[in-house]
């Protein structure tokens, strides 16, 4: 029997993996994929809670979250292409044109 706890534990695990990945990986593309993982973890939590309570809002929220994620992908990849054109790399450690 898969219960609410299982879903929430999986969601927390995915969120944790994504957050750790964001902090330790150096390639901008992989970092962005980690954020996507966290985004979907949040979506899973919304759906699980919504299903458990028999409500609709949480499931509707996920549709919006997916739409936002799609827009973020478009913008993020465009920015990464722009960076790659000028710098020939997407490694965030080599992006040091700005002091700090």
């Amino acid at each position, binding site marked *: 029997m898969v219960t609410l706890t299982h879903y929430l534990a999986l969601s927390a695990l995915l969120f944790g993996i994504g*957050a750790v990945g964001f902090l330790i990986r150096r390639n901008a593309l992989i970092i962005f994929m980690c954020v996507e993982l*966290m985004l979907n973890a949040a979506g899973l939590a919304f759906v699980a809670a919504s299903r458990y309570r028999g409500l609709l809002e949480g499931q509707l929220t996920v549709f919006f979250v997916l739409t936002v994620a799609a827009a*973020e992908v478009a913008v993020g990849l465009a920015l*990464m292409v722009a*960076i790659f054109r000028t710098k020939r790399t997407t490694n965030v450690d080599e992006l040091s*044109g*700005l002091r700090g």
Partner: protein
Amino acid sequence: MELSWWAHLWSVLPEIVLVLAAALMMAVDAWLPEGRKRELGYWAIGGLAAALTVTAVQAAQLAGGIAVPYEAFGGSVRADLAAMLFRVIFLLAGILTVAISMDFRPLRQSGEYYILLLISVLGMGLMGAAVNLVMLYLALETVGIALYLLAGYLRDTPRSAEAGLKYFLFGVFSSTIMLYGLALIYGFTGEIAYARIAQALAGLPAPAVMAALLLILVGFGFKVSAVPFHFWTPDVYEGAPTPVTAFISVASKAAGFAVLIRAMIEAFPTAQANWVAIMAALAFVTMTVGNLLAIPQRNLKRLLAYSSIAQAGYILIGIAAASPLGVAASIFYLGIYTLMNIAAFAVAVIMTNVTGSEEIRDLAGLSRRSPGLALAMLAALLSLGGIPPLVGFFAKLLVFAAAIESGLLWLAIAGVLNAMVAFYYYIMVARAMYVDRSPEEEKPVWISRPARFTLWFTVAGVLLLTVLVYPLYLLAQMAAQAF
């Protein structure tokens, strides 16, 4: 009560005007010949001014008691005086930003720049009005996505592209953490509307609420660039096109404060003791770190970045006070801050056009080169520093008074000490303008007409509000009663 379709539309009328203006601009952009693209700026100002007129009428109706506050679209947005006043701030910041963008050399004149700016103002208006979690997230992301593109707008310039990518990565990371906090809140309560969340949270264990609250505050902290969520600020401010920096530093920050104030007061009243402690700590760290790191800066945009972090700290004091006076003081401060910070950035834009760099030492001899420009910068700096009798002083006075009234005497003292530190680096900039000499003193400074308008408007605004402090305070107080 069943709302009429008109009442629904009325609540987001400024946003509707902005959508129409953005759509119209797309057509105009395709139709205008290459040599006349500069005129797009006037179209953008027209769209923003139309939305501002609508907002001003709505605000006057709400302030005059002709209209009553209500929630529309199934409890997504609220039309109240606070939402309208915040819209006035965003739209004014938008108009002034377009005016300093029009002749900013590095920006190629193109429609999408202005359209993105309109879209982000639209999102900010919804941020100020949002009263449920879904609307909050959507509005926040609308603003964010448009601003990531604007920060990286000069895509052939490595610094701008880098600023865009950094802003994007930190932005999506923090908003995703916030989303997880929202998911937790939804899981705990089964509600998405602020008012119902507040009722449902009352019976929940405090640690659970606290965990969700902390996650949500990461997203808000990023928007207002509060320490420790400020890492992106100096880099993005330095790398982004200067008019965009000006816009991010005032409008995006004000929008962050709008959602922060509303969410804390309307959704988390039961956890007030917790968030007051968090806000007080954030306020203290933010202003102290911002001011101390501003001192060694040699680049004008980085200095203004750290200065804007410190200013966010002062505004947080008003929220930490968690009283009607505190909220009114924060709204008052945000309105004033918008004018004086845009004035400072307008000078930075003009100087970048002339010298091609943004170093503070390039301001040397400005008082002889262009006395008016130097005087405008001086007024902005002194007001940012809170020197009496300028209106910036009253803004600080109000937040400190609110802190003392709420028993946060230590925070008010820390704020006063911080203001003294800040005075040092504002004066350093003034010294470069008035004392230092430069071989280029004879060369005139070219100021375009729209930029001249921004300067006159902001400086006259600061001076005029110095006289009209009390009416402005009354307005902020009325807005604070909306919560």
